[in-house]
């Protein structure tokens, strides 16, 4: 596709703008840190965003694939799902990519065929967004699930002694006896 050839030239610029748009959802001082500190251990959030946005971009060029896109999105969303963001703030970054790409290549879209290619690409990003909703929900559900589990674990032996928990051998040993 012609659009992909154009986009390949703009990859660096698109990724930079995309990273900026995510990083700037944090307060100024934090944004500076996320952008500038290049160390996967000292700055795991900035590092993850940088690495995974590139994965996502490359996948978009390769052709969107639900299976493949999930882990890349997961690594970013898993972080944003527990930070101080509303769901829309946590996920807007997927939609922002559409805006960034369209702006970046606007001047080079000089034919209907190219315009159609761009619309198709945007449809792929929409698909990415749909997967993002699922990933986000899964993260939130995990939090609720962990809360419930933790209560049981913290008083594990007392519950077991009171026969409120039964056991079976193997990995998922604990079962709620309540119902």
């Amino acid at each position, binding site marked *: 596709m012609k659009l992909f050839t154009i986009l390949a030239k703009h990859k660096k610029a698109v990724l930079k703008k995309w990273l900026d*748009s995510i990083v*700037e*959802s*944090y*307060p*100024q*001082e*934090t944004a500076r*840190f*996320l952008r500038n*500190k290049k*160390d*996967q*251990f*000292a*700055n*795991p*959030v900035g590092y993850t965003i940088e690495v995974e946005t590139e994965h996502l971009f490359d996948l978009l060029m390769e052709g969107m694939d639900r299976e493949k896109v999930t882990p890349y999105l997961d690594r970013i969303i*898993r*972080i944003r799902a*527990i*930070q*101080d963001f509303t769901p829309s*703030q946590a996920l*807007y970054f997927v*939609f*922002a990519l*559409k*805006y*960034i790409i*369209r*702006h970046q290549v606007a001047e080079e879209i000089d034919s209907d065929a190219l315009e159609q290619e761009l*619309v*198709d690409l*945007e*449809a792929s990003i*929409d698909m990415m967004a749909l997967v993002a909703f699922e990933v986000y929900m899964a*993260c939130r559900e*995990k*939090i609720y699930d*962990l*809360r419930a*589990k*933790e*209560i049981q*674990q*913290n*008083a*594990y*032996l*007392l519950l*077991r*002694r009171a026969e409120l928990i039964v*056991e079976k*051998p*193997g*990995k998922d*040993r604990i079962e709620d006896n309540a119902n």
Partner: protein
Amino acid sequence: MAAKTPSPEVVGQVDHHPPRKGWMDTKPEFKPGNYLYAAQPQNLEGVGLANPRTWNPLDDDWQLPADWKGTVREGIAERLQRYRSFKLFMDICVRCGACADKCHFFIGSGDPKNMPVLRAELLRSVYRGELKTAGKILGKMAGGRKLTEDVIKEWFYYFFQCTECRRCSVFCPYGIDTAEITIMARELLNLLGCNIDWIAGPVNNCFHNGNHLGLQPHTFKENVEYLLDDIEEYVGVKIEPTFNRKGAEILFITPSGDVFAEPGIFTFMGYLMLFEHIGLDYTWSTYASEGGNFGFFTSHEMMKRLNAKMYHEAKRLGVKWILGGECGHMWRVVHQYMDTMNGPADFLEMPINPVTGTVFNNASATKMVHITEFTADLIKNDKLNLDPSQNDHLTVTFHDSCNTSRGMGLLEEPRYVMNKVCNNFVDMAPQVTRENTFCCGSGSGLNAGEYLEMRMRGGLPRANGVKRVHEDKGANMLACVCAIDRAVLTPLMEYWVPDVDCCGVSELVGNALVMEGQGEREYNLRGEENPSYVPPPEPEEPEGEGEAEAGEEGAE
């Protein structure tokens, strides 16, 4: 499909930038999930703490006591007098920023007020604005501000997002320890009755019943007996420890979480097996039945009160010295405060390992030895019969707890022990281990259920280190020597690195110990089929009954 989607321009035009305001003008917004529940009045009354009342951080009116401003001012002044470190830390910070990005809560939450320098500034600004002449006159210009209820709310919000882990202090050229500033701020909050129930409840229970959950002596004993039954079932050995036995050589104290919480109980079983294995003359106390000390997160006085029972009980039982189990903050209290607070322990003797004869000179002041030092000494002197292949399905990595690593320098002993009881030990990267370790995100009393989401933020950098060692070296078990870690790293891993489980070092020891008269070790201490178990060769029958395949199952 694309036509129906809102145009990218619309999305692009929404401003996602947070508003730009000075830090003093940004107020925290309390929302369910981002604050800890307030202390219940009966838990404050039980130990005589100030301003017991029913309140909620979501309330507008926090029902602060009359003249609360005076209380805070006097509280600061008194502490500046009493603690020279506090006075120094208030005065000498040059705002170089070296500490700013070293806090796990800042890294994980992205909230700039979790930068240690800003966290300290929350209190320092009041010190300047209320107690220093320049700040009183110049106010904001001199970095000073006045006490308001909003300041107290902000303190409550951010000083309970500091786990007192001291990581920031490692990077400060002046050695400023923001943990100490948090300790002071929490003391001041306590003067107003702004405590959290997850700390106040355990403190009250511990004071009246000897442990955090308030287990009565018989319940404590019955719990231990339950675990003894499990050992009998899985290991085939009957153990009969003693409780409150006068004249025992050693008193063993460990955090009570290990007596009822998962996976701490498996570590507890490891202790019981180890002591049986070497025939140790020791006893449990059902009164000093808690190694943890949430008084440390309340005030110096409360820490002293709760810690005192260790020596009282050692004296009453007439033991020679004390052995302590795997705990983080218990060891910080023992190592840094116990001798000055409740010592000298001149009624105890210099700890000597009765099996190896090793003199624990390092414990000459407190007369209390860490279980990992003790175990390492036993292994070094070849006193344990170990079969590390029982842990072969595990690739173990180690979380250095802040308190034992930065707080007392216990770095080599756990690694030595793990290398002897497991065949596959891998360390995480040096940026995230030993003195540089990242906190579990739930220490200093923040391990409450309602705070889980915040804890996932605080624990992010730790989990990130584990994730790397999991992906690069196949680690599937995160060991630690702290009861709070065992409890909180379990959900932390489940959220961030779900293929990694969590255990105490002594659980690994227990699984590797070859006990006299033991049965087939088909099950591990968790009652799971042990994937590393190799059944003895069958004498006659050529068919192996597929049991060998058990080794495959569950190995991840």
